[in-house]
């Protein structure tokens, strides 16, 4: 059952991720990315990270990606134009990517032998209570700093996006 769930959602994630890359119009990419995020949320649940799964859906899919969709709709700029001038990217891109994937896979295979296994319910430390407790004790300082970061981001976004005052 776990394996089936994993395979189904991993497949969705990979297909959707490919779709993100190959779709010509950004809105299709955005929707595919939402699909990736949704399936990842399921995988998070499988790994016992229920709070993160919920946050993934609410924050990533529900807020960040909505923002993307919103901007895409607002600009309504249409599909991608073919005006590529990057010789480096076209020459080096594919080999580099293949190498990257191969190396990462090699790494994973070397470090994590197949006997380490995941089953649903194998980790129960990912509840909202556990995450919250860690967040407000051990990681209080980073947490507070991120609040400042967010504030800065808000101010920055407003300054960037507002109309110039004469």
């Amino acid at each position, binding site marked *: 059952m776990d394996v089936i769930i994993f395979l189904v959602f991993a497949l969705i994630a990979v297909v959707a991720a490919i779709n993100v890359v190959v779709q010509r119009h950004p809105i299709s990419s955005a929707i595919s990315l939402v699909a990736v995020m949704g399936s990842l949320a399921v995988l998070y649940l499988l790994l016992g990270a229920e709070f993160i799964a919920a946050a993934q859906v609410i924050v990533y899919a529900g807020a960040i990606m909505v923002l993307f969709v919103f901007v895409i709709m607002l600009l309504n700029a249409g599909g991608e134009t073919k005006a590529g001038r990057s010789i*480096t990217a076209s020459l*080096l891109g594919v080999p580099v990517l293949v190498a990257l994937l191969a190396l990462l896979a090699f790494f994973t295979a070397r470090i994590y032998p197949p006997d380490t296994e995941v089953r649903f319910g194998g980790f129960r430390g990912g509840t909202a209570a556990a995450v919250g407790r860690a967040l407000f004790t051990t990681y209080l300082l980073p947490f507070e700093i991120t609040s400042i970061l967010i504030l800065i981001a808000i101010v920055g976004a407003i300054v960037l996006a507002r109309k110039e005052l004469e």
Partner: protein
Amino acid sequence: MQLWLIPILPLAGFLINGLFGRRFSKGLVNTFAIGSVVLAFLWVLKTLWGLGALPGTYAEHYFTWIQSGALSIGADFSVDRLTAVMLLVVTGIGSLIHVYSIGYMAHEGGYYRFFAFLNLFMFFMLTLVLAANYLVVFVGWEGVGLCSYLLIGFYFDKKFATDAGNKAFIVNRIGDFGFSLAMFLIFRQFGSFDFAHVFAQVPAAPVGLLTLIGILLMFGACGKSAQIPLYIWLPDAMAGPTPVSALIHAATMVTAGVYMTARSWVIYTHAPIAMDVIAYIGIATAFVAATIGLAQNDIKKVFAYSTVSQLGYMFLGVGCGAFSAGIYHLMTHAFFKALLFLGSGAVIHSLAGEQDMRKMGGLRTRIPWTFWVMLCASLAISGFPLTAGYWSKDAILLAAAHRAPWLYWAGTFTAGLTAFYVFRAFFMTFFGRYRGEEKHPHESPPVMLAPLVVLAALSLAGGYLFKVPDFLRSIFPAAEVPEEFSLMAVASAAGLLGIALAYLMYVARPGIPDSIASGAKGLYALIYNKYFVDEIYDAAVVKPVVNGSRVLLWKGADVGLIDGIVNGIGARAKGVGGVLRLVQSGNARSYATWVALGGVLVIVLMIAGGLR
């Protein structure tokens, strides 16, 4: 006892006024500036009250400031009787001058800036006085120098003021060089900067080294306390506002050198040659400055040279082993010299900024309060019997007589000169016919007069009320000499003679000075031009340094060598960059590809280096 509170209060005043004073009303600035200093004064009183008779040294350690190998320097404060005298003088006179400044600075720009700097000065001065080791003294020492520079150049839109500030700062640096060398030697010999630690080991130290340390310390003191050969900055420092002249350049900062030498008395008592040097420098300065003072026409310049001269007296006392007499004179001098400056400030204030005595005269009836307080101060500085100056000056002259008769006679002669030039200034200002342009000289406001009256009372009675030598007897070695009435009488007589002569020349027979000046033209010109010392320094020191810097350092080393190296590096970098520029296509996707390639390389290196 929370000694730290004493300097911190003015610092708080400085921070508040310095940061927010621009938006404050003058009343608010006054509240913080004066309130902080008065509170510091009260805290000093409370502390001293709490410490009682203060037989020894009371020390407080706050934190270790510098810890490096064998070197361990704490932020330490300590109080003994010497410090107590200095604390009372600094905070007491400081409070009075702050109050006076309300009236004096009322119509000046940069009001909050003035008070902020004044508070900062108080902080550093109190740090200097409270310090329990040489390095903390040095912090205060440099800090008061900085504040002196800032306040001399307070009217920064006037070139002579900024020049005077620079001069004071640079000349002080020369003295600080000596002080620094002395500190290096102290650390090398004693392995510590703490007073208690150093002084305990002094008897075992070689005399030659102690002499060197003593002379170098004295060199530092020469800079700060305006002694020959570094006295030239002090007269120029009168470019600052008059309260600054009174507080920093008469009552407190310039006496820091005296305080420091007195504080280091253990070193000096073991280095008699250094003592002699101090005494000779002191008497020479006292005499030379007094003679220059004879011919000055600017009222503040007269008192500036008078300050130099009086500081010379203090060093004479210290050099003769009468440390307590030096401190005694330091205190009384703080009373009457502050009063002289503040009084002259009141005169200047009443004449709308006129400083030339030739344009004064006859002010006795127009500004009577100022007249009376100035009379008190003039009598005190002249050593008129029973005034403050009489006691302290006689204490010094007695010590000098004990040391060497010629020192006594030179000192007495200088005392006569002092009385003469001070009363010359006094008579030129208050007697005779009014020669000025300002139509309506007016009396100063009460807020200025009140501190004057307090200081006048202190100038008259302060010497008798506060018998500093008795108070300090437990600290300094018994260099007591029996009071010889004849010597005291002669010294007082010299003062009275000087006053009489001044009366004769400037009130009774006003023609005499001109005839003397024309009779002894060369001598007069020499004195009037301050022995051409500034010009000599300019030719001997400043010009060679400037020219050397220009030709050798700028054209030679800087342009040729350093710029050559820098430009060479730049040219190489440009060459390499020209090749690398091809990578910088300005295309974000290319950059991304390079980043990805870098990531791949990192992973390859990790694998090549072996996992884990």
